[in-house]
């Protein structure tokens, strides 16, 4: 099918066009980028159908692009979030420098992601994977004026380690199975741990780094929080899911087609890695003072849940993972947009400096509230469904009983940073400096609200996601995946009726709202955040009593042993030692001609001495 290549062409032309439009008229850069992505998405959903395949030769290698249910599922994340993020971007990035650069890289990133999900052979997978990586690298360093040496590069180095691990695996697949097509490789057992263990391990390493799995997550906090927020929406929401895409492919193949009982350690290791990722991500999220960083760590934690879900390899677990993948895109996308809106309107997202924005930015707060509820997994919003599926999968279908405790610990501790985020930015006493702050522009609010409403609707009707997810699971080999529109059930026959719950909550809400709030609302007077009863003393106008510093210090103290495990420091030490070690080699080039001449002579002598060994 030519359609697939036309799709990529749309994005490519879009990237080039936006780059040049920017130098002509800066006003239209964002709009044109948005229109191109919209066009690409419409084209995708109207002209491309499941089962399309496009085979061609490039560089003597057979390449195959195609769409199946599994990739179609991920396309929702990429394109859906992509359109919203670009719409949001128009106003967010307005007035900043190098917009052409920004949007061109943005579109290239989306192109890379689409390429990854439509690749059905390893070479194009790798090519698109790398395009996605370097295009996103260009965006990561977009904001990082001073930190470029460490932050952006860290992302790139880890990405490269991942990509090259993947490339190694690809090379060995070519060697051992004599194919570069993913489908054929799967059939011949390339993802099987029984034959060549290092192939699936290298692949998992490659995908896992993108999914920010411990201990390779250290690039993520900085990369997520330092990028422009409109891009982080995609970065954390969609690009990390490319890692999940790959892990899902490898693991489900392994679980379904082979003999996983003998390789219990795979499940155990991956599950625990995911669990530890979740815990550490959460723990570090709740001590952050920068809202963006908080969200970044929280993303890592959420990706940990998804990995845990995949590691079970059972129907419910994989369903949980796929469901969470979409849901994480929805709520975390919305939250990063919220952080971006605050950043744009206020100038900072430092929670020790911002407070009390709820009355200045009510719609933004609404989106934040809804998304945080979804993130925390509190019913009746979508997040609860994901949590339920994950727990039930771990308890009923998997043997990882202690892992469920770890996950539960992480998701309980997630309440802490959830509250911290809402409280830090929107609640507390109002600052004098933020009095002038206005609500974010409408073109930023629309995508946020769409995502917010999305997580509300999914809370009652998770079947909307279950349907494509079930198809996706069938596409990667699961049989008879059942789902219901608003009913969750596990293999022990226990159910949770979501629609009923939502209706109950909604009706209680209506009654309480009518009789409690609305009845006396007219007679009430709004009191400012400073008219409070702190020992009968009113705070001065310039004082702000909001509790912002060391918000969870007691928790930090209680959990202090856990905070000692700082992966970042370990990697940093490793990097320093390596560079010091390199310094030794570097000194071989002394800059002295005599030394160089000596090297030649020594080398000659060595060759002459060991000639029998070397040239035998």
């Amino acid at each position, binding site marked *: 099918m030519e359609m697939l290549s036309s799709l990529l062409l749309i994005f490519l032309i879009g990237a080039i066009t936006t780059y040049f439009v920017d130098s002509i008229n800066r006003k239209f850069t964002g709009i044109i980028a948005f229109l191109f992505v919209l066009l690409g998405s419409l084209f995708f959903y109207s002209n491309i159908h499941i089962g399309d395949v496009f085979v061609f030769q490039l560089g003597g290698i057979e390449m195959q692009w195609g769409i199946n249910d599994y990739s179609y599922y991920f396309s929702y994340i990429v394109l859906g979030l992509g359109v919203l993020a670009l719409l949001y971007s128009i106003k967010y990035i307005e007035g900043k420098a190098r917009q052409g650069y920004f949007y061109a890289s943005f579109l290239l990133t989306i192109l890379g992601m689409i390429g990854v999900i439509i690749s059905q052979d390893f070479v194009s997978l790798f090519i698109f994977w790398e395009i996605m990586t370097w295009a996103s690298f260009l965006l990561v360093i977009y904001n990082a004026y001073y930190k470029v040496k460490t932050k952006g590069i860290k992302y790139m180095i880890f990405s490269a380690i991942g990509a090259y691990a993947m490339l190694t695996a690809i090379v060995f697949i070519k060697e051992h199975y004599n194919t570069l097509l993913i489908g054929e490789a799967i059939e011949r057992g390339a993802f099987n741990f029984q034959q060549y263990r290092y192939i699936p391990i290298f692949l998992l390493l490659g995908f896992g780094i993108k999914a920010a799995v411990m201990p390779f997550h250290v690039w993520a906090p900085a990369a997520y929080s330092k990028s422009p927020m409109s891009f982080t929406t995609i970065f954390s929401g969609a690009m990390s899911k490319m890692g999940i895409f790959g892990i899902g492919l490898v693991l489900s193949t392994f679980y379904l087609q082979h003999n996983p009982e003998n390789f219990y350690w795979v499940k155990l290791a991956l599950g625990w890695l995911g669990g530890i990722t979740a815990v550490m991500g959460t723990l570090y999220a709740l001590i952050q003072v920068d809202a963006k960083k908080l969200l970044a760590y929280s993303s890592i934690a959420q990706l940990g849940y998804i990995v845990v879900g995949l590691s079970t390899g059972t129907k419910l677990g994989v369903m949980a993972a796929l469901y969470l993948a979409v849901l994480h895109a929805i709520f975390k996308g919305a939250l990063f947009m919220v952080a971006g809106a605050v950043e744009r309107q206020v100038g900072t997202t430092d929670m020790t400096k911002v407070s009390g924005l709820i009355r200045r930015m009510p719609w933004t707060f609404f989106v934040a509230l809804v998304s945080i509820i979804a993130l925390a997994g509190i019913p009746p919003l979508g997040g609860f469904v994901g*949590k339920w599926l994950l727990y039930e999968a771990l308890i009923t279908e998997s043997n990882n009983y202690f892992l469920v405790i770890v996950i539960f610990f992480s998701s309980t501790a997630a309440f*802490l940073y959830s509250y911290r985020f809402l409280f830090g930015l929107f609640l507390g006493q109002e600052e004098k400096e933020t009095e002038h702050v206005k609500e974010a522009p409408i073109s930023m609010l629309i995508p946020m609200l769409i995502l917010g409403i999305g997580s509300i609707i999914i809370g009652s009707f998770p079947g909307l996601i279950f349907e494509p997810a079930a198809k996706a699971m069938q596409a990667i080999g699961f049989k008879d995946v059942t789902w219901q529109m608003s009913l969750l059930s596990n293999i022990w026959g226990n159910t949770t009726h979501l629609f009923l719950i939502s209706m109950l909550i909604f009706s209680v809400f209506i009654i309480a709202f009518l009789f409690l709030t609305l009845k006396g609302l007219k007679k009430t007077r709004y009191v400012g955040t400073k008219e409070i009863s702190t020992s009968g003393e009113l705070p001065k106008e310039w004082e702000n009593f909001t509790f912002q510093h060391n918000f969870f210090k007691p928790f930090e103290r209680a*959990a202090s042993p856990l905070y000692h495990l700082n992966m970042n420091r370990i990697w940093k030490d490793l990097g320093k030692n390596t560079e010091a070690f390199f310094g030794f080699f570097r000194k071989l080039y002394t800059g002295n001609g005599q030394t160089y001449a000596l090297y030649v002579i020594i080398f000659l002598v060595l060759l002459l001495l060991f000639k029998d060994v070397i040239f035998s």
Partner: protein
Amino acid sequence: MNDIIFKIGGAFLTAILAFTVGMFYAGLRRKITARVQNRVGPPIYQNFLDLLKLQSKRTNVAHGFMGHMAPIWIIIAAMTVLMFIPILQNNLWFENLTLKGDLIFLLYMMVFGSLGMALGAGQTGNPNSAIGVSRGLSQMVGFEIPFVMALVALMLQFKTTSIADLMHFQFTSGHWIILENPFAFLAALLSSLGMFRYSPFDIVGAPAELASGPMSEFGGKYLGTMMTGGAVFAFIKLVLFVDLFLGGAGNNSVEGIMGTGLGLLELLLKTFLFYMIPVFVGLVSPRYRTEQAIQFFWKWPSVFGILAILWALYKNGTLL
């Protein structure tokens, strides 16, 4: 048709029962505390009077959107959770929606109200409220861990995640889970101390330091509603423990209204006995600091929790 009457009537009955019992127990606790401290103390019905007073007040001040939402969310959480808890075994009136949700749902739904209160408290701008919330959330991470361990142990042991199924098992087999998995009970019991937020775990309200913490800016009807929610929640927690570990209530074969009455009596007896544990522990302990409280739950209760899971696996035959 009959069904719907039973449903709606039952829901009302459950709510009234929960409210009454909750308020009554709260009054009882005040009385007991007073007596232990060698005071006369307020009458047992004092809480009803308090509530009456609060509800008859007009709401004068508003703290903005979340301030309005806080009491609503609390009452939502209380009512929703109540609807999913089986009060009596095999009783049409008190069946509610027990088979439509399970333990995981209950765990998460319980947080809903606290979240609402925390957000409302946050918007008032009172620093004490925020400190209270911070402490409350931190402590929650503490006690939820052993509690979840206990629940997971039960789920594994009895192969169900439904609370009604657990009750049914105890009814049919005649074995209470407290004997089937004593470690789970211990873990849950210790974490229940934190759940009730009485001394030594009353760090959220901490009257001496935080001036009642999150609640401090609320008054009138809103405070009254919050109190109601709290009373219902106290009842919910007690019933939950009775259902899970003490065989539930209503395990008699008497037909009709008599049976319901006997069942309720059984329920009151069991809940009262269980309630006395946190109350008496509270009477004799001073307040913990937040980190001490968290660490308390991560020590012995969690050990019991792990033992509970191992025990469940052993009973199950999956261990070894």
